[in-house]
């Protein structure tokens, strides 16, 4: 047991090294000397990671031991990059981390007995999610930015409800599909002999549909893609029928086409995506300027990057404008590529992939369908979020602003993703404990 604890703590070594090396190179590159203050930063942040790790490991001793250390690496990486943009951003991020760990601990504490109680509150959860999505449009709370209504102003803090609402959607879908998946499969009739009676699908479509409408209402296309994708994925896994994603994607194509015709902002995005280096589009307001600058920043990084702290972030030493706007959130991936190059970016993508893999592993070993669907949904929505933003910055898909989980600056994203992590660990702990106990029982039975 003690050996395992030591191993668990040792898993945090990569994150610690990253903080130490990261801060050191930012300093070296910016011509400063290593100050005690900056070391204190790194040490404090690491302390937070250890606290979170200890909480998780003592409350959930059977949970997946790799998830939190992997996320610590991401968080440390993000902190170094934010520190590199602006010292105060790093301080903010660290503060949000404390809140995030608070939410993480609270989630674990509240649901430590059995998270499956959430299954019974699915309608309440769905309602909460929809209301949250509605909030940014409520006068007084509204805080529009770039034509999108992504955040609500709670006093001095801007909060993005889409981040938390995605958890509500996954919880609702997991619960609903776990209860009704047998019916969805068995009662399949309809024109192709495959469609189940609409009445079983209706509640699901209603919640999902309202969510989508809300997202278009607040103009958060990136989140809409995430939500839609995770819905299809969960429906597919719950029923095992490929027809759902096929029909879903067809509907999505029609919907996207319709929106393209209706919304000039979306037309602009697609135009910018098709030809980001077109000088006319670069100069156009709402054109491809940001995307082009992001590509230039990546080209600048090349194979090995300019080094942490080495990327060009200001036109002139005293200038306020930056050749890489939105580096702290939407374009943080471009900044990372610029500084640590293709090699570093590949490492980052690998870490995300490892986290998703651990999440899928939890879904595989979970015993009941609610747990399976919940873990799968959480891991999928996390993966899709990475794909939407990194794909946008690398011009695989039109750019839509979502945060890069645990790396981008943004409080709601960190808090929400910590809750996501807590839920994953809860499912994991339960699944692995059940497996362990099953094994023990089997052994005892054999011995007897």
């Amino acid at each position, binding site marked *: 047991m003690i050996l395992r604890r030591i191993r668990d703590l040792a898993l945090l070594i990569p994150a610690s090294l990253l903080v130490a090396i990261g801060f050191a190179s930012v300093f070296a590159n910016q011509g400063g000397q290593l100050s005690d203050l900056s070391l204190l930063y790194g040490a404090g942040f690491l302390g937070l990671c250890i606290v979170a790790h200890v909480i998780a490991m003592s409350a959930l001793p059977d949970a997946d031991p790799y998830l939190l250390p992997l996320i610590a690496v991401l968080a440390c990486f993000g902190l170094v990059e934010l520190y590199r943009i602006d010292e105060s951003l790093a301080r903010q991020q660290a503060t949000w981390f404390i809140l995030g760990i608070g939410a993480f601990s609270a989630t674990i504490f509240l649901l430590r007995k059995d998270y499956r109680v959430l299954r019974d509150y699915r309608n309440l959860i769905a309602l909460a999610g929809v209301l949250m999505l509605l909030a940014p449009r409520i006068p007084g709370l509204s805080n529009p930015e770039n034509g999108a209504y992504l955040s609500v102003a709670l006093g001095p803090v801007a909060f993005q409800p889409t981040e938390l609402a995605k958890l509500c959607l996954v919880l609702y879908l997991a619960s609903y599909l776990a209860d009704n998946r047998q019916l969805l499969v068995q009662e399949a009739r309809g024109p192709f002999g495959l469609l189940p009676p609409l009445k079983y699908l209706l509640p699901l479509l209603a919640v999902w549909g309202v969510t989508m409408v809300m997202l278009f209402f607040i103009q958060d296309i990136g989140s809409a893609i995430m939500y839609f994708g995770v819905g299809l994925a969960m429906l597919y896994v719950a029923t095992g029928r490929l027809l759902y994603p096929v029909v879903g994607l067809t509907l999505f194509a029609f919907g996207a086409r319709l929106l393209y015709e209706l919304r000039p902002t979306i037309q602009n995005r697609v135009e910018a995506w098709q030809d980001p280096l077109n000088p006319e589009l670069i100069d156009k307001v709402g054109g491809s300027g940001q995307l082009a600058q992001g590509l230039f920043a990546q080209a600048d990084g090349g194979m090995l990057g300019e080094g942490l702290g080495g990327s060009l972030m200001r036109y002139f030493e005293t200038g306020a404008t930056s*050749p890489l706007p939105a580096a702290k959130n939407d374009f943080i991936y471009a900044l990372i590529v610029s500084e640590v190059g293709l090699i570093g970016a590949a490492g980052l993508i690998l870490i995300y992939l490892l986290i998703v893999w651990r999440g899928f592993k939890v879904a595989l070993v979970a015993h009941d369908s609610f747990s399976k669907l919940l873990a799968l949904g959480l891991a*999928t929505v996390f*993966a899709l979020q990475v794909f939407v933003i990194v794909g946008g910055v*690398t011009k695989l898909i039109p750019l839509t602003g979502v945060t890069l989980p645990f790396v981008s600056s943004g409080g709601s994203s960190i808090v929400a993703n910590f809750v996501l992590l807590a839920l994953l660990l809860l499912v994991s702990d339960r699944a692995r404990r059940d497996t362990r106990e099953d094994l023990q029982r089997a052994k005892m039975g054999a011995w007897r």
Partner: protein
Amino acid sequence: MNQGIRRLFVLILGLFVLLLAGTVRWTVIEADELNANSRNARPLLQTARVPRGTIRAADGTLLARSVKQSDGTYVRRYTQEAQQASQLIGWAYTNSGVSGMEKEHQDDLTGKVRSAATLLSALRGNTERGNDVVATLEPKVQQAGLNGLNGRRGAAVAIDVKSGGVLAMVSTPNFDPNQMRNNDSASRIQNDSAGGSPAFNRATQAGYPPGSTFKVVTTAAALESGDYTPTTLVDGSSPLKVETVDLNNFGRKSYGKITLTQALTNSVNTAFARVAEDLGAAPMADAMDAFGFGKIPLIDYPDQQLYASGVYDRDDASQLLEVNDDLDIARVAIGQERLRVTPLQMGLVAAAVARDGQLPRLSTVQRVVDPDGRTLSELDADGDDAGRVMSERDAADLTAMMEKVVEEGSGTAAALSGLRVAGKTGTAERNIRENVTQPWFIGFAPADDPQVAVAVTIERTIGGTGGVDAAPIARAMMEEALR
């Protein structure tokens, strides 16, 4: 359900591979195009953030330095001495780009070329700046060339025979490189054809008719053929009918049987025309090729600012012709027949003879020094050979013949008291009716231990000759170089 979960993971794995592929595309596959994109300010800003190293002349005179501005970027400032060699030094500004040495040695000056020790010192927090470049340029030699041209359009080069260093590269008119910082004055300078296109480097970019200086090449071909020695008798009678058109000697003077040395001393056209007709095109082509004609010279200077000397098509001035029997080889031999040469190439001809028949590789840089004073690279005092042009023996013979030119022939104005000078004059006719000529002189000194080779030309004089107008300028430059 587990099968669906596994399949979904494979799908996500595929999506992540796409993300990686997207990153590879911008960081590796299309990186060069993105870096070269005119809307990408990063490469230029990177260089503006780091002060370029200084450029100094060989004697330590400051030519160019970077000065910090209030916005934190650095801007180039050029001294009076740099203005005297403006085409050689060039300029480096974010709006008008880079040119000349500033362009060719961009990586040195911006510090891209670094030793491991320099990198370590940068890690210790020493402020980053480019390497310093010490040019081979000798301001006194440059000044002598400028004074000699005295406002007339033309060019002059002086080459260190031993090292291949460019001691002077004069092109008049010149300009103030500081003016290239401003968009308006930059485009004015670059498009000022009425004012003599000052940004144009006449020493390396102008294709001039070489006149009789080309007879040095013809003589080299004759000696190398083995059929001729300095005392071989040749027929100098005038006129000589070549392809139905009469070819005359200077002043229509007719010589009888004379030695090859006498032919060169008195620059006898008909004698050299007959020599070339006797040799044929192939030996002439070989000699020209060995001297570096037909391609741009080997020098650390931007290719775009170098012109390949040779025979050009009469109708298409950009078409370099092969030297073969299709050409009027008799007229090529005396520097006519659309032969177009740069002053730099003629300087190389003199330098190759002076260097015992070895063509030198030219260099504009003496030394590159990193910010901590470590020498990163240095020009070898013995230089670098770019190929043998003729045997040592033939080079010695040709040197003796060229000495005669200065002692008693057309080039006496190049004589230096107490020193042996070898040379050859040239007077290209540019407009016979209006008596417009282009005087030339190429040569080197001291003839017994050559140190400096020069080539001088004045674009346009009325009735001027190489011996009277160009030779004194060459003498002044050699005198300064040997001082």
